[in-house]
């Protein structure tokens, strides 16, 4: 074993880039990292504790209506927009009184009489779960295929590039609709044949991840090609470092950060597409409606009450920006040039 330890020592000495790095707490004092982390952790806690926080349960009936709230008003206003006392003299058929504020629903109710607060809490839960899972999938698949294409040039590379071109030649909304219809049916059928049941969230995340990997793989491929031509990889190769170790220790560290940024840039797209698919009714759905679904389902009916679109939009934007900030921070932390 003496030989291999000498090799390692040589590698540590001569290669500037990728020796084991030490982590210090001060490394984490990156503002965008911290802001993103705090926002995501807060929203994540809200999502994780949703059953405790939300005043009402998610819909249990198949048509997605809170059966508890059947007697609730449509579009009850949130507490800050509670209407003033109504002058009964002024009320007529043309000028109906505004829906009164209902203290049972502090944030009001949506067009289907559901409690907005519960919807937002559960929507955050399922949107975060779907988005995070899909981004991780995109990251993993994109990096794997990109490294494969960049390291093994030639036929395999062309195949990956071709697949990426194909995945991107269909508009993402259409492609996601295709994959959503497909994945829910195939995975569901396959698991049913095996006597298993799978939650809806991984299925939705998987179908949304089928498109986004292409841009990640493209970027990773270029970076791998650039990195594998660098002096330190040449040096390591000359030292006789085996291929697998070369990739893991000397190529991958340069690729993971940028790939994460590109993957997490798809976070908002994923949430919006998920909402559109939900509103149209394509593929499996999670037990409650998601933030994107809330936005799109309100459009046909909420011209008069835009606040019910703005509330889920605000949460969705917070999630998206936090994810972007966090990914940028993580990229800086991962980057080997930083040490």
């Amino acid at each position, binding site marked *: 074993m003496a030989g291999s330890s000498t090799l390692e020592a040589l590698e540590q000495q001569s290669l500037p880039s990728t020796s084991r790095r030490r982590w210090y707490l001060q490394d984490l004092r990156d503002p965008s990292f911290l802001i993103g982390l705090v926002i995501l952790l807060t929203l994540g806690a809200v999502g994780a504790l949703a059953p405790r926080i939300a005043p009402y349960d998610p819909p249990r009936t198949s048509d997605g209506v809170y059966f508890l709230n059947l007697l609730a008003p449509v579009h009850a206003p949130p507490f800050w927009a509670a209407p003033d006392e109504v002058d009964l003299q002024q009320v007529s058929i043309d000028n109906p009184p505004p829906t009164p504020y209902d203290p049972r629903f502090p944030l009001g109710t949506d067009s289907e009489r559901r409690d907005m607060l519960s919807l937002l809490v559960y929507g955050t839960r399922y949107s975060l779960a779907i988005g995070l899972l899909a981004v991780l999938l995109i990251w993993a698949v994109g990096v794997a295929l990109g490294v494969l294409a960049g390291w093994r040039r030639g036929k395999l590379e062309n195949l990956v590039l071709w697949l990426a071109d194909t995945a991107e030649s269909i508009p993402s*909304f*259409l492609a996601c609709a295709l994959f959503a*219809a497909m994945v829910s049916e195939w995975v569901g059928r396959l698991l049913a044949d095996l006597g298993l049941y799978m939650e809806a969230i991984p299925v939705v995340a998987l179908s949304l991840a089928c498109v986004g990997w292409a841009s990640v793989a493209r970027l990773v491929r270029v970076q791998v090609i650039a990195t594998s031509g660098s002096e330190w990889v040449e040096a390591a190769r000359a030292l006789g470092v085996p291929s697998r170790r070369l990739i893991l220790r000397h190529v991958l560290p340069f690729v993971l950060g940028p790939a994460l940024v590109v993957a997490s840039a798809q976070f908002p797209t994923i949430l*919006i*597409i998920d909402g559109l698919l939900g509103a149209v*009714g394509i593929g499996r759905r999670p037990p409650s409606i998601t933030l994107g679904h809330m936005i799109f389902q309100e*459009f046909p009916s909420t011209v008069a009450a*835009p606040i019910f679109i703005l509330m889920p939009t605000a949460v969705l934007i917070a999630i998206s920006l936090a994810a972007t900030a966090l990914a940028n921070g993580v990229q800086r932390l991962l980057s080997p040039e930083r040490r």
Partner: protein
Amino acid sequence: MAGGGALLGYIIRRLLWGVLTLWLTVTLTFFALGITFRLASGSSLLEVLRGQVPSVGPSQGGPAYELQGSPLRQYVAFLWGTVRLDWGDSVSQGAPVRQVLLERFPVTGKIGLISFALAVMLGVPLGIYAAVRGGVVDFAISWTSAFVYSFPSPVLMTLLLALSVYTVGIFPVGMAGADWRGYLLPCLVLGLGAGGYIARITRASVADELHRDYVRTARAKGLHKLLIYRRHVLRNALGPVLAALGPTLGLLLAGSFPVEYAYEIYGTGRLLLDGFAQQDFPLILGGVTLYTVLVLGSNLLGEVVASLIDPRLRAGG
């Protein structure tokens, strides 16, 4: 003449690559979605693969390729149909797919083209102005476009969609096709984000060119600033901008799904989304072909125009 030959060869190579990609897309869609819809109608995978399930969905007089024996023969019939732009009758619309697509596409096409024009008319002049003027103007435009750009475009789109609900009194919703005012909101929502992206690319490209040595030399020779900009800087800086315009056009033409849904515009986007919900197999096959051609076509157009202006930009393969 050698240059012209090389360009032609380049275009043909890109065209072949595009046809290959289109073929893969259409083939994957045909098999994957065909099996999916047959599974959804309750058949087992084995029956489907043996070709024992002749028809998809509630279709009665379905398209020819669904009635002909084994999956392979159906596939060949479908490919031949795609070449002739004949996908049979749409199940949900009760009319030939080609006719339905042709009826609905003008709305979607207009939205895509208008928002593209908006993005270009907004992005290119602002980008050039920011780069040439510098100073406070550059700062303001750069930061605005950086904000618009770093705000991921779907989020910007959602935000604009949500805020536009307040202007519904001024701009009618669901009127695109009937009234020119109906196009304003959807095109604004789609075009603004793309405009920020184009402004950013234009600014970077022009600023990069402005700092080259030849500009200083020309200035030292006493040539007028505007002449240098018009003759040399803009022409040289245009390549990367044009290369970015192709994919942007494709993105806008094919990106109107959420806008069409939100504003109740009945274009091809809405049509296809409804087609999915109703498992309208022929319609989806036709739609996927149409959209893939749109995206690949505008990418190719952008590449060719850019390489006409700047031969260095020709991609390999």
